[in-house]
């Protein structure tokens, strides 16, 4: 379409996230004494530490990284759980909730076998989270919160996210249906 955006939806929802992020920094600064910026990847460190603790508590207690991040249920941990609840509620209300066993773009390229999707996603998850922790954040923490504050680390990391993502996506999904 040449006249006006096809949909204002992502702009409006995005702008409201900007309002939420600002309000969150203000409210958490007042109520908790420390500003809380949106982020998600440290929660995976804390959750991994909690799971490991059930099998090897002394190992977690001695691990420098777990100790520096504090293995506990904090503000961000609850934020991430809240995202799941909010997405569930919103998708039920507007009827966009849909049970899906594998994503269409993936299926076009690799077929619908659950095991193939599981291997690909687990592998991707391992590499991505290792990278996010090395970079010090994910698209929420570095991307959104970093760019809102004009932090150099945010711009560098986000550049890495997109360059790495564009290269691998084009290598992996080329050959899939182009009109997906």
């Amino acid at each position, binding site marked *: 379409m040449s006249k006006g955006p096809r949909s204002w939806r992502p702009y409006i929802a995005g702008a409201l996230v900007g309002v939420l992020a600002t309000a969150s920094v203000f409210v958490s600064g007042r109520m908790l004494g420390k500003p*809380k910026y949106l982020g998600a990847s440290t929660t*995976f460190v804390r959750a991994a530490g909690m799971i490991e603790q059930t099998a090897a508590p002394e190992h977690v207690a001695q691990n420098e990284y777990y100790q520096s991040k504090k293995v506990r249920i904090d503000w961000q941990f609850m934020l991430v759980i809240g995202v799941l609840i909010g997405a569930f509620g919103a998708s039920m209300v507007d009827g966009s909730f849909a049970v899906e066993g594998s994503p269409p773009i993936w299926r076009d390229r690799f077929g619908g076998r659950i095991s193939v999707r599981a291997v690909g996603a687990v592998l991707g998850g391992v590499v991505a989270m290792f990278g996010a922790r090395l970079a010090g954040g994910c698209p929420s923490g570095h991307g959104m919160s970093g760019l809102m504050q004009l932090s150099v680390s945010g711009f560098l990391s986000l550049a890495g996210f997109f360059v*790495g993502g564009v290269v691998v996506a084009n290598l992996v999904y080329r050959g899939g249906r182009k009109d997906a």
Partner: protein
Amino acid sequence: MNEQILGLITGVLFGVLLQQGRVLRFEKQVGALLFRDMTIFKFMLSAIIVGMVGIHALAAVGLVEYSVKGTHVAANLLGGLFFGGGWALMGYCPGTSLGAIGEGRWHAIWAVLGMLLGAALFAEVYPALKASVLSWGSLGKVTLHGALGVSPWLVILALIAGYIAFFVFLEKKGV
């Protein structure tokens, strides 16, 4: 109100907006990396424009504090590239993976499992990385306007102009 309840309320609102922005889906995440559907760029940059102005305006009158992450050039870039590669394969980022499960895309559970493994792996090798990659190019908590020695508002105006020009370009292309 305690920290956990505040986090949960913020998260529920964040989840509703992510879902309503339609950015949780694998198709939107990978679609952007294939330049077929740029929804996540529109969403993220809109959030950044509003948050950037909001946070700097409130900080200017002393109502909020910044929390800038330290810059480690090598780790930011290298970690960023790794993240990007993994992101393309799993089709989710840490925040959207849980949201995707919430809207019924239960296969995102594999991405969550992988990310938990990746976090555990990182915790094991952290001491070696701390002494090497993480220390290369450490510049401290630098900001663009700090590095350039100008007012943040100058940088904010320039960035808003650039982001809006990008939106116009995307809408013209119809992606």
